């Protein structure tokens, strides 16, 4: 094994530019793959946030019957499709309004609590349950109207909002995975071509090894190890560049998305996520390297 590693290092030293080309192509693939992995993670978090953030606001009539409100509240609390139920009084509604218009205090001064309706706010556990819940709540006598906070790209109906959210997630997941797969295919081809070129230049050496009784495994091991080396360096290079880009743009991303936790909240968790991505990429990279080199060896053997 020691000799196999030594041979691998010799092979790498012999054609450094081929090695560099293979590493950079792998690096580009895994740079994009790392960014796509983060995008998939973040889109999942975004969807989860939208699904669990208070989305339904039930505005109550101006002079409601306290008992009726209490009954509605307990009915909603017992509904297992609903979570995070909260009652917002007229005074609290005014405070929210004042906070929202703090850049123009005059607007806050002109209104009194009486013009704001009290409301019940809650989230749904599954976004697709929203429409039936709203329809049910609308029938309650104390309910004036029901609002839905999620709104993407000006969709008019709730069904459209749900559909749109799902589509975005699918685009990110399927599109991203498809693009990463395409790049992985290119890496695989480049690795196969580089290894084939190497085998061609080592034809005589392989012939000599076969004559002195080298087994297939003895001959293949340094070649496969060389391919794995490209993959490992490529994965690490791509991952490092993606991490640098992510760390550089994190403040902007966090400001843009505000309180939506699209990235882990602390550094340890963030690096935990990046570590998992690196591990996954190393596994994929090594599989690509092994397959690529074995196919190149197979093709070279068939030609001999």
């Amino acid at each position, binding site marked *: 094994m*020691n*000799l196999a590693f030594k041979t691998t290092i*010799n092979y790498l030293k*012999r054609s450094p530019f081929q090695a560099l080309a293979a590493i950079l192509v792998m690096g580009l693939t895994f740079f994009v793959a790392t960014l796509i992995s983060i995008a998939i993670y973040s889109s999942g978090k975004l969807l989860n946030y939208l699904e669990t953030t208070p989305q339904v606001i039930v505005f109550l009539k101006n002079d409601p019957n306290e008992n009726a409100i209490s009954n509605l509240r307990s009915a909603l609390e017992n509904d297992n499709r609903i979570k995070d139920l909260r009652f917002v009084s007229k005074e609290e509604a005014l405070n929210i309004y004042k906070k929202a218009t703090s850049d123009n205090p005059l607007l806050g001064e002109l209104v009194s609590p009486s013009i704001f309706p009290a409301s019940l706010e809650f989230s749904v556990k599954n976004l697709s349950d929203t429409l039936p819940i709203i329809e049910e709540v609308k029938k309650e006598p104390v309910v004036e109207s029901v609002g839905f906070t999620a709104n993407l790209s000006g969709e008019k109906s709730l069904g459209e909002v749900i559909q749109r959210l799902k589509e975005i997630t699918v685009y990110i997941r399927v599109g991203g995975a498809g693009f990463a797969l395409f790049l992985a295919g290119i890496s695989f081809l480049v690795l196969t071509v580089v290894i084939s070129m190497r085998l061609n230049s080592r034809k*005589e*050496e392989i*012939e*000599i*090894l*076969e*004559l*002195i*009784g*080298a*087994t*297939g495994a*003895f001959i293949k091991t340094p070649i496969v190890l060389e391919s794995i080396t490209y993959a490992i360096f490529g994965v690490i290079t791509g991952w490092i560049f993606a991490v640098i880009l992510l760390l550089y743009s994190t403040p902007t991303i966090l400001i843009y998305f505000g309180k939506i936790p699209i990235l882990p909240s602390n550094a340890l968790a963030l690096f935990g996520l990046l570590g998992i991505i690196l591990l996954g990429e190393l596994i994929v990279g090594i599989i690509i390297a092994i397959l690529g080199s074995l196919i190149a060896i197979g093709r070279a053997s068939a030609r001999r």
Partner: protein
Amino acid sequence: MHQGPIVVFKFVSKSYGVIKAISDIDFSINKGEFVYLTGASGAGKTTILKLILGETKPTTGHVFFDGQDLALAKAKEIPFIRQNIGVVFQDFKILGERTAKENIEVALAVKGVKELEWSERIKHVLKLVGISRRSTAFPAQLSGGELQRLSLARAVALAPKIVLADEPTGNLDWETATSIVELLHKINKEGITIIMATHNRVIIDKMKRRTIVLKDGKLVSDSGKK
């Protein structure tokens, strides 16, 4: 000294398409023997060595190496059979980007010899072939004679049952060629069977050993046949 046959050819023929390389070759070589295989170019010497190495299979007949029928050997078994055969070629077949010592190390690794034993074995074989002081030299820094000595050292390091030498003196001047043949005889004295293919009659006449003569793929004489 002789302990039964190590190589047996039983009415072996080998054709490459319509060309018949050898025809009805029948002989056996005992362990510890030194045999010259001679004949003009194209007589079939290299084909016989290739058949022993398992590089090619006979069209008809059987080739036995150390009791094993090579025609029946699976492709996976061939490397293990070759690990018992030392090979020396006219064009040396030395790994160009490794030093003399590393060339022997590779052969030892191929045979699975423990690394602890490498140093001792390398020292012994380099001394045996007389290039101890050239162990760290690369092939490009060695003369033709030294390269052939290295090739011999690599073959002997594996402690083979047999050494096949295919025109080992073909690329060498007379003096160097003689020293290589003497070296092969020295190795033979250590108990290793040698089959040397050569068309150099002067060497054959000088060394006086069993000689198998081939002509147009046929065995025309065998001085060892009783």
